[in-house]
């Protein structure tokens, strides 16, 4: 059941995305707009900064894009296991590099 994270403001927008429910909160400090996007299902959140004069729809799109990348990362937290044989090969057809 989606839930509103405790630390998100009362006036946050709730958006239905194909991925699920997302809360978006805008905090203006002077000329700067801080946009917080929170995935309701997991509570994972991201922050982006932009000019306060920019269209909210644009900043929202950027924030949601960033949230989706973060969710993708959370769904695939570990690297695929490397075969023991591959571990010992620096690069196909190379003998190694000197830096």
């Amino acid at each position, binding site marked *: 059941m989606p839930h509103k994270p405790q630390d998100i403001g009362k006036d946050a927008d709730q958006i239905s995305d194909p991925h699920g429910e997302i809360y978006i909160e805008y905090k203006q400090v002077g*000329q700067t707009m801080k946009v917080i996007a929170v995935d309701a299902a997991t509570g994972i959140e991201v922050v982006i*900064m*932009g000019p306060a004069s920019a269209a909210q729809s644009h900043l929202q799109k950027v924030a949601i894009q960033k949230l989706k*990348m973060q969710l993708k990362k959370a769904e695939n937290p570990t690297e695929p296991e490397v075969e023991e044989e591959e571990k010992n090969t620096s690069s196909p057809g190379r003998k190694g590099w000197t830096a």
Partner: protein
Amino acid sequence: MNYEKKFADALKEIKREGRYREFADIRRKCGNFPNAEHFISDEQHDIKVWCSNDYLGMGQNPVVIAAMHDAIDTAGAGSGGTRNISGTTHYHVELEAELADLHGKEAALLFTSGYIANDASISMLVKLLPSCVIFSDEKNHASMIEGIRHGGGPKHIWRHNDLEHLEELLQKYDQDTPKIIAFESVYSMDGNISQIGDICDLAKKYGALTYLDEVHAVGLYGPRGGGIADRDGVLDKVDVIEGTLAKGFGLMGGYIAASVDIVDSIRSFALGFIFTTSLAPAIVAGALASVRHLKVSQIERERHQERARTLKRRMKEAGLPVMDNPSHIVPVMVGDPVLCKNLTDALMERFSIYVQPINYPTVPRGTERIRLTPSPIHSDADMDHLIDALNQLWGEMDLRRAA
């Protein structure tokens, strides 16, 4: 063999053609852009710079300069090594995260220049994708062309900004053939802009990866300074974005932003990334301050666009042959390499205005030009002075005026 004569003859030839490059010995004045000093013989003169790629004057921005001073006091002068061997400072890590965020990508990777970023990244992408075919816009920058050449795979050159031609070429290959479409957002010598979204749609249709050079747009366009792709709301459609820290951001260095796996592949295999000392901490700290500043500040971008529009309008009114385009670049056609050089020499010597002539091979022969780059800091009085000088010289040299 007389080696010295061979070199001397090569130089004599480009001098005869009027395209021998002479560098102006200048020193910019801290906090007083676009003013600089010109050193000639034992003298120095005050000049106005009208050809800098520090488009927004961020190289003189107090926030940037303070960050650089602080980094030197904190971390010293150099990075100390390659990225792999002690040269990955915390500044590098922070800047890469900031650039990934700027372009809406999972990761970013710094290079010592935009040229190296293109050469190293494109060549390695081609090598990592067996049988990969590159589709390159005919006006792509030399660094992209070098990257394509070093990649060694088959290539097609599509007519500049001609999407029908691009599609015609893409249709020749199976969906499964690996393909990369390499193009720029703002073409720096003509100032025209590509249709990024449409090109990405074609890429999707034909199963191609997109590689977009945004060096003349990052910092300058988009609500957060993420370039034309940011302005057009199509950041998510582009696979690899390449940018520079040297123009809109006012420092030096280049970068790419892309998925974690693409960035990690280039980090792991690209020789131009691996075998060079990393950028100095002060450079990276300054770039970090610049990127962060331009992410939230629109004033520089708005003023920059206004200055470019005003200069173009005023030059047209004066009958000067400005090449029309939708960007901040103000190219003025001369059409002859010798006249172009004579014009810029006279601007410097008689009017203390510094503009570099743009000759072959940077532009095709017969299209030699001057390229003006008004910044947010160039004043109306600076424009009066420039236009008066150009008008006078245009008459004296009997140069072709606008139709």
